[in-house]
């Protein structure tokens, strides 16, 4: 623990150990690969955000007057494809999982450093195919690639986009594999499973879903390509196929994929809330096990996307019941985080503000999921803006908020610099307000019956759409601000020191930025995770002694 107070910074760290483009493109350092991922997914995030802005501008008026309907269809498709496959799926696992998993367990690197670099190249190759399909005319199938539209009726670049998604999937599988093996094999001496930070538990559960789910998506995509190119009768009824088969296969991956996007954020919350309450998380075992429960149950609920698609009454009911079960572990997490605050000693730095935002937004996202799980209600609101609002509350309110929270929390560790606190707090507030203004009206729109993926809409829906677009503009400012102040902080930010938040966790016991191999010597762990009482006692002792 004494290392936490060390003040002499090593002259070399992973950022300045080597210079030049080659040293980055050929690196096998998990931290540098995390930075490569951070830069690439941020670029994709703003590309996807650009499409979203055009969508919101089109929907400002009921008539389809800004872009053509074909263009609009491409915009929401490309927004979805880029945001899901190129931002949300890799976001936290590939950036923060990559950076932090080895550091949190006291390891020098991930188990397979070269595979790790390969998975970034695979991701970029997949991204290149998707960019190619966007630049050469776009894609209009919706991110869901529903058949037979995607295999027979769409005249857009389905094949190149499908190849892109197929390839990017492997990067996700490799990252998952790497994390699983690393957590099993490379924990520091004394770091038992029950001493692991909850971030690790969440990433472990996520990785299992990545490794088991993604191959199903890959196979499904191949089948779509086979039918589109060679007219194999798999999904098209006219060729003897079954369009519902596609939906079963697709959602078998894509529902668990929702948990790929949200579980890592939950891991971030457990770290951040504990740190800024100076407390061990309430109910460690239950939070850890609920991650595992979500990963398992997440595979059993896919057909709740298909209640109206033509599945049998009893199938719909069984999936409805299983869907209600999967709501429980998420609720348990929310209650435990809230209880963690009880009798804490709370401060309100930016990451904590994001954590509060996360709990609120994710609670609404989760509870509206209960609405959709109830078949009787789903029949009315599925494929409307209610669903759009629901999954944005989970994906953005949960996923992106979690990502921003993590970025603020570990930025000092990654770069050695502090971000400007006041601007950061302002952006957190803008994100929260802008987000709610954008997406809350969409719940109302959905209940009123506005279908999703509509280029033009009846005039009675306009007021709420205008509110939503206004919110999106605020949200955009909230997202752009961190870009600027993080870049600014690289040069002008205050020195962070090894542990600016006095946080627990092995990653804080080494320099900021860390050296290439993370630790001077492999730590030996003799304490439980989240030993905030010890840290604070030591800090007080130092003060008193000083």
């Amino acid at each position, binding site marked *: 623990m004494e290392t936490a107070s060390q003040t002499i910074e090593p002259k070399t760290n992973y950022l300045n150990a080597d210079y030049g483009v080659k040293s980055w493109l050929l690196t096998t350092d998990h931290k540098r690969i995390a930075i490569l991922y951070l830069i690439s997914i941020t670029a994709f995030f703003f590309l996807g955000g650009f499409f979203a802005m055009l969508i919101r501008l089109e929907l400002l008026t009921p008539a389809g007057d800004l872009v053509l309907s074909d263009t609009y269809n491409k915009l929401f498709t490309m927004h979805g494809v880029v945001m899901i496959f190129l931002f949300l799926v890799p976001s936290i696992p590939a950036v923060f999982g990559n950076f932090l998993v080895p550091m949190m367990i006291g390891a020098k690197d991930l188990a397979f450093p070269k595979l790790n670099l390969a998975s970034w190249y695979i991701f970029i190759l997949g991204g290149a195919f998707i960019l190619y399909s966007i630049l050469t005319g776009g894609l209009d199938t919706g991110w869901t690639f529903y058949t*037979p539209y995607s295999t027979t009726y769409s005249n857009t670049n389905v094949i190149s986009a499908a190849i892109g998604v197929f390839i990017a999937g492997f990067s996700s599988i490799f990252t998952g594999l790497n994390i699983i093996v690393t957590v099993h094999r490379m924990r520091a001496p004394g770091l038992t499973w029950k001493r692991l930070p909850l971030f690790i538990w969440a990433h472990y559960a996520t990785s299992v879903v990545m490794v088991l789910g993604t191959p199903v998506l890959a196979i499904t995509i191949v089948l779509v390509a086979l039918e589109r190119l060679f007219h194999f009768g798999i999904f098209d009824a006219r060729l003897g196929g079954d369009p519902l088969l596609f939906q079963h296969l697709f959602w078998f991956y894509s529902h668990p994929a929702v948990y790929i996007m949200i579980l890592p954020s939950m891991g971030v919350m457990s770290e951040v809330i504990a740190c800024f309450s100076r407390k061990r998380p309430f109910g460690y075992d239950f939070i850890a096990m609920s991650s595992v429960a979500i990963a398992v149950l997440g595979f059993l609920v896919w057909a709740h996307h298909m209640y109206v698609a033509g599945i049998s009454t009893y199938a719909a009911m069984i999936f409805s019941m299983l869907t209600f079960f999967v709501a429980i572990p998420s609720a348990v997490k929310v209650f435990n985080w809230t209880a963690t605050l009880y009798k*804490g000693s709370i401060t309100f730095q930016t990451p904590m503000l994001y954590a509060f935002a996360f709990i*609120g937004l994710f609670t609404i996202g989760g509870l509206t999921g209960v609405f959709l799980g109830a078949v009787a209600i789903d029949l009315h609101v599925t494929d409307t803006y209610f669903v759009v609002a629901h999954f944005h509350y989970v994906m953005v309110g949960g996923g992106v908020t979690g990502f921003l929270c993590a970025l603020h929390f570990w930025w000092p560790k990654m770069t050695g610099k502090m971000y400007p606190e006041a601007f950061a707090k302002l952006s957190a507030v803008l994100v929260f307000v802008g987000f709610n203004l954008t997406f809350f009206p969409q719940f109302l729109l959905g209940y009123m019956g506005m279908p999703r993926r509509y280029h033009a809409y009846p005039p009675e829906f306009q007021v709420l759409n205008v509110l939503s677009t206004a919110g999106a503009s605020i949200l955009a400012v909230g997202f752009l601000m961190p870009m600027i102040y993080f870049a600014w902080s690289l040069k002008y930010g205050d020195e962070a020191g090894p542990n600016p938040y006095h946080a627990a966790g092995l990653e804080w016991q080494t320099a900021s930025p860390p050296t290439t191999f993370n630790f001077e010597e492999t730590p030996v762990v003799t304490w439980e995770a989240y030993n905030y009482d010890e840290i604070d006692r030591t800090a007080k002792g130092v003060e008193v002694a000083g």
Partner: protein
Amino acid sequence: MAGHVDALYFALVAMAAFFTFLVSALILFFAIRYRKERSPEATQIHGSTALELLWTGIPLGIVMIIFVWSSVIFFMQTRPPKGAMEVYTVGKQWMWKFQHTEGQREINELHVPAGRDVRMIMTSQDTIHSFYVPAFRIKADVLPGRYTSTWFRATTPGRYHLFCAEYCGTQHSGMVGEVIVMEPADYDRWASGGVDGSLASAGEKSFQQYGCSMCHRADAAGRGPNLIGVFGRPVLLDDGRTVTADESYVRESILNPGAKIASGFKNIMPTFEGQLSEEEVIGLVAYVKALGNGTANLPIPVSEPNSGDYPVAPKAEGSAAKSDKTATPAGRATQSTPVKPEAKP
């Protein structure tokens, strides 16, 4: 129905609001009460199994109540009452086509009487669409290659939005229409005005035109099953299974006859896949249905053609190759076998 759905919906809104406010209020309270200035030192608490069980158990109980409540409504939503009037629907890029049993056809407008149960029997000519009337709180996907159905009972005359809710391409947002709910008397007047025959009578014409009546005769001497009184009853298949002769079974038996052979008959019927439009298939289904309840003219047997070949529609020239391509293995077997061997004697 809309009332039931709304009741559940607002109960859920209340539940969601309660939990959102509970969590937000607790966070706010803790954040103020235990901020560092007032609570300089945290008290370490490892957890409480009793609390964990409590906040696992209560939500579980709540969602199970919701599950039962929602399932009861869902059963009502999916089981059409007996005696509902039927409207056949074909979705295509990018319009809705409706055919009433009385013979009226409409596009993007659906006239229905208030206070009567209406069952929609729907299929798509191309990609997946979804029939959505927000005011009735119902939605059902419309798939190619099969029938799906939903039902509603409109209570108040008026005009209601009809949307396609499953993304279907360029003019998806233009695939909209109106459900026009009329007073029953007005509807009856509308339905009987200017029609040249019911849907079943259109089906009867196809039944003769495509030579169905050659084998499916009104007596027991045909090579295919006698279809009188069959609809809605269980059919024993040659593999021992039993299916109910509903719209989907009739449709499948026309387009893929080899899939489920009625017991005692040979797999000799050629497929009509690719030869009939969706509207013609619907006419035939309506005719078979009318034969089932005795409201249609009986089929008139066609005399045996000399060749022993099966009569097909006049436009079917060259379509043998086409249907060959689209036939399933079972269908293909019927194509090659019956024509040639039977021509020999």
